[in-house]
């Protein structure tokens, strides 16, 4: 995403008095056009913005989705800090609220005026018929660990600082004193010399008459009053008493419920349905046939599900009906023998390998993974009066609005999306993963009452957009002096982010290349995207090289990071906090791994043992993270804990297999989740390097699999080159390796 866009601010008086301030990035030629769009609109909709009301409350509208990562708290903290607002007077709203959302003209105006680039993981949509839709989605998308570092740093802080500037101007005029004699604190402007002060609420209407400064002065970190403090998350109280509204909880009046059976083989179509028995059952209203699915609509979800399960449904045969996990990995192996696409070429790797004193080779594999968010996929849609309302939890409300419009043929302005909390996102609720939304829309189009489509856990497990299975092959060469001189890596399928397979280590000759090997299995972004696979590969193989060289794996890495001081500092911090050099009780070992992703650098040390039945036990994970600066330190910790456990769950258990063209796993009984009894202690160390803000939602996920696998090598002498670990039966080695 572009970091240095021109920006402008828009101020306006809102109905009933008060100041509205928005921020957008744009090409300068569009400035006038966007301002024109504001005329006559009492409540314009902007990308990131805040509202100051006469009662002195500040309302911050957050254009990102809350899925537990704390964005509803962190973004308002950033605006309120620059504004010098009293945190107790700050209110937060999820944008878009319904009334604001109706202002579609402006949304379009802004979207088309934005010189935005589309993140690669949205490519499928960006190339779809309307670029405009993709641009709109980009404005509200919650993904790529981007909210705080982009919307927050470039939007919320600027909006807060600009509003403060305008309030100062208004106060200077009203008090007839120079601006330089005024100061701001706790939602008031103070004139110390005369002892007078005015509240922001009193000043807001007057402030709105001033031109918002385009480049207001931002605070230096030592001036922060909220950023850097562990402010309690505002969404938590509603999440302990059952009142937090998730998409699945929507209950518009007159609602019916739909249960759906989708073709198990992706790409298959509905062949035949015998719906007679279903229609006899209590509560069943209708059977709806779609291209690739059939739905039963009833007055209660359980009744719909029961009727569906009792129905006979056939799907058409497809060319993929014989595909299975083994055939996919065989296809990958073949692709890696064929033509490869260049990723990184540096030095002369073939020559360095030919001249090497010793060469190490290894092939790694990881399986497909499902997201398995706790809230099963669902979407409630109501077509009425030529319009449509949508209730769902999504990582991009505007993107879903565009999607429902395109599926139904309605104009986007006729679609209202009611934002809800997400019962887990992890990439599953991104706007390029809309199979549930599409089905819910098509089903509801046949009714004039709201219809809530709920996928069962089995539907969710078997109709996901999976993290792709990947094979990755390495060869590395050491020269006669024992220096690592050559690094060759061939892997399947370049995904996002583009640099995921790049090594941070100083190796003079590198040849990294990939083969495309498409399958019929749908894939999507899974927390940390391609980093989740490649960090396991890279950091396991580097560990192999350390042992091959007879060196301490920590020291070996450190020696290769001479040109990467931030990486080295994070690695050191993790090692020191974990007591890397301290002895462990018999039967335990430590493994280490490092990765930079989404602008943050994370190193982890896992402390591991083998249980009595050969199971892997992870006692503690030390996680050092340099995200530049922590906006909410407690959220940094909670996201690190969460990322570690998410990555560890995948490393221990995560495996989606394919048989007869379809996904085998169905529910939590065969797609297992880490639970409390297996959960390690997670010890988080944050490093305030002052570098540009990095993301937090994803970067703690990638390293843990390699850290655990590297510890297992020390414990057992067995190198883990395929996941998950549940497929191994480890026995602790009689004497532990050093």
């Amino acid at each position, binding site marked *: 995403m572009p970091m240095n866009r021109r920006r402008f601010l828009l101020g306006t008086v809102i109905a009933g008095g008060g100041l509205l301030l928005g921020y957008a990035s744009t090409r300068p030629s569009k400035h006038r056009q966007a301002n024109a769009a504001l005329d006559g609109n009492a409540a314009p909709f902007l990308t990131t913005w805040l509202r100051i009301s006469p009662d002195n409350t500040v309302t911050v509208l957050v254009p990102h989705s809350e899925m537990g990562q704390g964005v509803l708290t962190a973004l308002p903290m950033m605006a309120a800090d620059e504004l010098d607002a009293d945190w107790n007077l700050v209110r937060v709203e999820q944008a878009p609220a319904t009334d604001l959302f109706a202002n579609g003209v402006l949304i379009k105006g802004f979207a088309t005026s934005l010189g935005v680039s589309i993140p690669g993981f949205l490519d499928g949509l960006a190339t779809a018929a309307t670029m405009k839709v993709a641009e709109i989605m980009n404005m509200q998308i919650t993904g790529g660990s981007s909210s705080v570092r982009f919307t927050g740093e470039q939007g919320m802080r600027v909006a807060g600082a600009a509003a403060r500037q305008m309030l100062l101007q208004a106060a200077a005029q009203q008090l007839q004193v120079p601006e330089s004699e005024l100061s701001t604190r706790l939602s008031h402007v103070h004139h110390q010399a005369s002892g007078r002060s005015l509240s922001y609420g009193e000043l807001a209407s007057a402030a709105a008459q001033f031109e918002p400064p385009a480049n207001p002065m931002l605070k230096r970190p030592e001036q922060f009053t909220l950023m850097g403090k562990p402010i309690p998350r505002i969404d938590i109280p*509603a999440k302990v008493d059952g009142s937090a509204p998730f998409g699945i909880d929507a209950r518009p009046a007159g609602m019916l419920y739909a249960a759906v059976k989708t073709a198990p083989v992706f790409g298959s179509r509905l062949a035949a349905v015998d719906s007679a028995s279903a229609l006899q059952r209590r509560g069943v209203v209708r059977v709806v046939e779609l291209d690739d699915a059939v739905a039963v609509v009833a007055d209660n979800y359980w009744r719909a599900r029961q009727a569906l399960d009792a129905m006979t449904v056939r799907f058409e045969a497809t060319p993929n009906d014989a595909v299975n996990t083994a055939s996919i990995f065989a296809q990958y192996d073949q692709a890696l023998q064929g033509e490869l696409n260049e990723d990184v070429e540096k030095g002369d790797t073939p020559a360095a390998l030919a001249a090497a004193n010793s060469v190490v080779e290894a092939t790694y594999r990881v399986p497909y993974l499902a997201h398995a968010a706790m809230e099963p996929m669902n979407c409630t849609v109501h077509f009425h009066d030529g319009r449509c309302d949508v209730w769902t939890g999504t990582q991009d409300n505007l993107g879903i609005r565009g999607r429902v419009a395109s599926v139904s043929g309605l104009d986007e302005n006729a679609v209202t999306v009611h934002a809800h909390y997400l019962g887990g996102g992890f990439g599953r609720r991104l706007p390029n993963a809309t199979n549930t939304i599409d089905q819910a829309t098509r089903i509801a189009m046949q009714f004039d009452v709201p219809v809530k489509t709920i996928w069962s856990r089995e539907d969710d497990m078997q109709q996901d957009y999976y993290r792709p299975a990947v094979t990755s092959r390495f060869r590395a060469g050491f020269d006669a002096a024992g220096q690592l001189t050559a690094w060759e890596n061939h892997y399947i399928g370049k995904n996002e982010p583009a640099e995921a397979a790049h090594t941070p280590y100083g190796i003079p000759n590198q040849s990294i290349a990939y083969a495309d090997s498409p399958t019929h299995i749908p894939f999507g972004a899974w927390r940390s995207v391609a980093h989740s696979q490649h960090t396991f590969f890279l950091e396991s193989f580097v560990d192999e090289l350390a042992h091959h060289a007879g060196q301490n794996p920590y020291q070996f890495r450190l020696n290769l990071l001479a040109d990467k001081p931030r990486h080295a500092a994070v690695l050191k911090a993790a090692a020191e906090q974990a007591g890397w050099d301290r002895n462990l009780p018999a039967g335990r070992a430590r493994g280490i791994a490092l990765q930079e992703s989404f602008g943050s650098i994370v190193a982890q040390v896992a402390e591991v043992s083998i249980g009595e039945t050969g199971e892997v036990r992870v006692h503690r994970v030390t996680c050092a993270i340099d995200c530049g600066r922590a906006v909410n330190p407690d959220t940094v910790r909670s996201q690190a804990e969460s990322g570690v456990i998410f990555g560890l769950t995948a490393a221990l258990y995560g495996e989606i297999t394919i048989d007869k063209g379809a996904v085998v796993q169905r529910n939590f009984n065969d797609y297992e989740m880490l639970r409390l009894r297996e959960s390690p202690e997670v010890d988080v160390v944050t490093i305030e390097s002052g570098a540009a803000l990095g993301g937090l939602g994803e970067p703690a996920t990638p390293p843990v699999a390699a850290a655990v696998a590297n510890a297992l090598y020390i414990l057992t002498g067995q190198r883990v080159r395929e996941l998950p670990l549940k497929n191994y039966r480890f026995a602790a080695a009689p004497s532990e390796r050093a």
Partner: protein
Amino acid sequence: MARFRVNGTAQELDIEPDMPLLWALRDELGLTGTKFGCGIAACGACTVMVNGNPVRSCVTPVSAVEDTEITTIEGLAVNVAGGLTPVQQAWIEHQVPQCGYCQSGMIMAVSALLAANPAPTDAEIDGAITNVCRCGTYPRIRSAIRSLTSATA
């Protein structure tokens, strides 16, 4: 006719005896704090208390809870001063929830455990709290439980 009490109120529902309690609560009574997670009693998101015992409502037919007293997350703090139980307060204090979807069931399971056993060992906690949290709030769940058991021990 299914008859039971929910959060102190008598309910009489004209529903099938094999309808799971989960869907009776959510779709018939509109008590959406109790969550659907898996439908096979594997995740615990649907945990409620039946006569004080933790029960996974997604596999519990209403015929099995005839004439019982059911407590859902909405009714947990009904008679508690301040509107939140110590478990709920600890959840805020330790900033436990992330996405929050599993936390109703988690809080019900922990509340039932601590009511029956105010000072559980780690092994007893591990054995009783088998709910799934996909966001991985487990370290904070353990700290929150420990803060309550050390206070009452």
